[in-house]
């Protein structure tokens, strides 16, 4: 006798496999949902194939918190204005010019229309969070964070009649003669089945959840990386598409990576694992040696480079050490600091060579100079005569108790992805595929060659998710369109 769940599953399975969907959306995060909603509003029958179970739906979007948005005057919770050129310049700075200007400007310009669209589809915003005042002009924060946004979109999609299947891992996208026919999908670990569609939107994220792939790109060091977001972005669909000859963009070693609390879980630690103490600290590697200017810039701006810095250290680990006078200058950490009344005691607790740490800190302390300390701005309080120099906030580490945090590289998402055009269409060997679009992290490498700009991932996902949904709807309803372009 079939159990109720099993019977239900079989019914669901036959419901989704015995029809041709207008638009198949692969993935269940922000970009996928934006695409599904747009296509459903255009009158399409849409199915979302989300690889994660319902409790973990939404990919990395569930960990996000804001949306970087151009605006020519105050807009919703955003103050003042943030114009296209300033936005684009900010992007140029972090990517060192490694971006596609046309796509980047398209994302930036469209972001302004997206915010009201998001509100109209259930997303609610809140003023920038305490501790993030610097983003109040440029980034609109989601009330409740990304999971609340994801919930709102799933509710909107449900109201529009979009079919959502969880634990649905797409294994293969069937493309014949430049045209998508169907996907092979494993639902809840069952035997693969075939879901047919007239158009497809690929929005299944990067490959950072596949540690083996990361290790192939990075070398064995990658096995020590922590993955800040969902474990379900394993790049299965990305790899399938690349294997079939889809054009790719981006470098497999490029990703958004930051230095996070070394005690964070391997996956899904999210925002709370960030550590903001670095600028007020001395950072040493496992040999007790300093390796980079801890005070190079205000932390949010430098946040993204420390992932790579720590990744380059032995065993991919580093230790940030502060003393009592700096203990409340940064956002609280999720795990309590290691604490000791002596530097040696702290070093021992953290498994560091105590004598070497003492020498490093003594040398650093001796290089500190008198001057005014301003924790919230570049204060120019720099060391003299120590390598590497600390160029701001350099105060001697002398006042017990001493506190220490371990740091590890935390990968947010990888940049190797599918190359798309301004209509989010995927190409294969230079030819546009007839009915295949991509949005979100799976194509973000088209715009983010390297570096990262806070809140820009959600901008790319929303802008290209909506475009992909609209285009896929057109593609599905007009039927076969030639490879004319």
């Amino acid at each position, binding site marked *: 006798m079939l159990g109720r769940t099993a019977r239900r599953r079989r019914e669901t399975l036959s419901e989704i496999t015995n029809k041709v969907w207008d638009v198949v959306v692969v993935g269940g995060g922000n970009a996928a949902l934006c695409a599904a909603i747009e296509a459903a509003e255009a009158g399409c029958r849409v199915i979302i194939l989300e690889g994660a179970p319902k*409790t973990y739906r939404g990919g990395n979007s569930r960990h996000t918190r804001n949306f970087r948005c151009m605006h020519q005057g105050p807009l919703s919770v955003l103050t003042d204005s943030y114009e296209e050129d300033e936005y684009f310049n900010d992007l140029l700075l972090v990517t060192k010019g490694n971006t596609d200007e046309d796509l980047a400007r398209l994302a930036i310009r469209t972001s302004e229309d997206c915010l009201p669209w998001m509100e109209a589809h259930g997303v609610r915003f809140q003023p920038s*969070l305490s*501790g993030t005042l610097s983003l109040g002009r440029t980034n609109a924060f989601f009330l409740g*964070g990304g*999971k*609340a946004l994801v919930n709102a979109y799933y509710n909107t999609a449900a109201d529009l009649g979009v079919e959502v299947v969880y634990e649905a891992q797409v294994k293969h996208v069937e493309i014949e003669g430049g045209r998508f026919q169907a996907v092979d999908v494993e639902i809840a670990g069952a035997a693969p089945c075939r879901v047919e569609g007239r158009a497809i939107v690929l929005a299944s994220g990067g490959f950072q959840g596949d540690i083996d792939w990361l290790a192939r790109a990075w070398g064995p060091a990658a096995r020590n990386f922590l993955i800040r977001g969902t474990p379900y972005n394993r790049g299965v669909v990305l790899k399938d598409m690349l294997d079939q000859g889809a054009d790719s963009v981006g470098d497999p070693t490029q990703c958004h990576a930051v230095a996070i609390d070394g005690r964070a879980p391997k996956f899904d630690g999210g*925002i*709370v694992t960030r550590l903001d103490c670095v600028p007020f600290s001395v950072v040493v590697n496992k040999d007790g040696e300093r390796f980079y200017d801890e005070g190079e810039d205000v932390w949010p701006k430098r946040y993204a480079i420390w992932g790579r810095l720590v990744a380059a250290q032995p065993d991919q680990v580093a230790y940030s050490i502060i003393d009592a006078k700096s203990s409340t200058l940064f956002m*609280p950490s999720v795990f309590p600091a290691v604490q000791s009344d002596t530097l040696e005691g702290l070093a021992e607790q953290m498994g560091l060579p105590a004598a070497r740490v003492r020498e490093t800190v003594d040398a650093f302390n001796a290089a500190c100079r008198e001057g005014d300390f301003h924790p919230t701005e570049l204060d120019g309080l720099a060391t003299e005569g120590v390598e590497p120099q600390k160029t701001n906030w350099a105060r001697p580490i002398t006042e017990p108790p001493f506190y220490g945090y371990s740091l590890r590289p935390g990968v947010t998402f990888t940049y190797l992805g599918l190359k798309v055009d301004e209509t989010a269409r995927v190409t294969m060997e230079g030819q546009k595929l007839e009915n295949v679009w991509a949005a979100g992290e799976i194509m973000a490498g088209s715009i983010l060659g390297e570096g990262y700009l806070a809140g820009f991932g959600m901008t790319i996902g929303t802008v290209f998710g909506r475009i992909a949904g609209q285009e896929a709807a057109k593609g599905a309803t007009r039927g076969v369109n030639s490879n004319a372009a």
Partner: protein
Amino acid sequence: MPLDHATQTPASDTPAADTLTDEARRQIEICNACRYCEGYCSVFPAITRQRAFADGDITQLANLCHNCRGCYYACQYTEPHEFAINLPKALAEARAESWERFAWPGFLAGPFHRSGVAIAVALIVGLAALFWAAQALKPDGGEGFYAILSHTMMITIFTPAFLLPLLAIFVGLRAYWKEVGGEPVSLAHLKAAFVDAAKLKNLSGGAAEGCNFEKGDRFTNVRRWHHQAVMYGFLLCFASTGSATLMHYLFDMPAPYGLFSLPKLLGIPGGLLLTLGGLGMAVLKTRGEKDLGAPALWGGEMAFVLLLSFTGGSGLALYAATGTAAVPVLLPLHLGAVLTFFLLTPYSKMVHGFFRLAALVRDAQQKS
């Protein structure tokens, strides 16, 4: 209490580890590193004002929480995530535990908070007491209700039944104020607290326009409106009784009162709001996720809200039955419910209103 700000745990002198408080503290420290929920209610801005949380801070946050559940559905760290955040539940349990701790005399609090059966038994005892009083002490004269139970007898029963619980609540609130480190109260603090309470601002969800209760992660104001109905219904009923007392003593205008008298003009809408709002709350309660509150208290809360509804409903029935043969039955029924309600106030869900108001006053102090 000296707190170590970097290790974020009370440095010393915490009394014997209280697991509910500790669990709430564990979760709040995670929330303080995240802060995504700042816009929902007053709890999260209050969290961000501190780095370390003493037991009294947890008590304050627990009583400030209105259980709107917005933070739960928005949380990226709910189970099966290893951080296992369920803040509405953690705070509900710490809150209930604090009410039991502050209750005076304390032994009465546990059973009535946790057990619907205990409340039902209390109600039956209350009803029986009133029926007995109506039978055994039947007055010789008197008009209307007073033909069944004399005015003197009502006063003899209800004055202590009203004042003693108030005294008990006062003792509890004083202990609360001490534990949360409350300062002298100013008019501005009171005003802020009463405005928040009057609007149930903390059930508004901020920009989300509602809370998450009967429809999972969808926001609605249904629970907020029902709670408003109960709260204002109760206040109107209370004002009705108060106005009648004043009319009796100051103006020598004893009951019964006509339809266009103050007690009736306040009492009828009050009774309707209380009865219907209470029933609505009870129905909502069956639809909400049990595990986002204090599951052990569900029965006590349900019985309490039904008792409130019954109190209002029996009062309306009594008025509707004026002059009929049903009055001798309905009067003890209604008065018995009122008596039970009064006596249980310090030891049941009803007490939440007092502590929540205190928490709002304290929050206003901490904001200023």
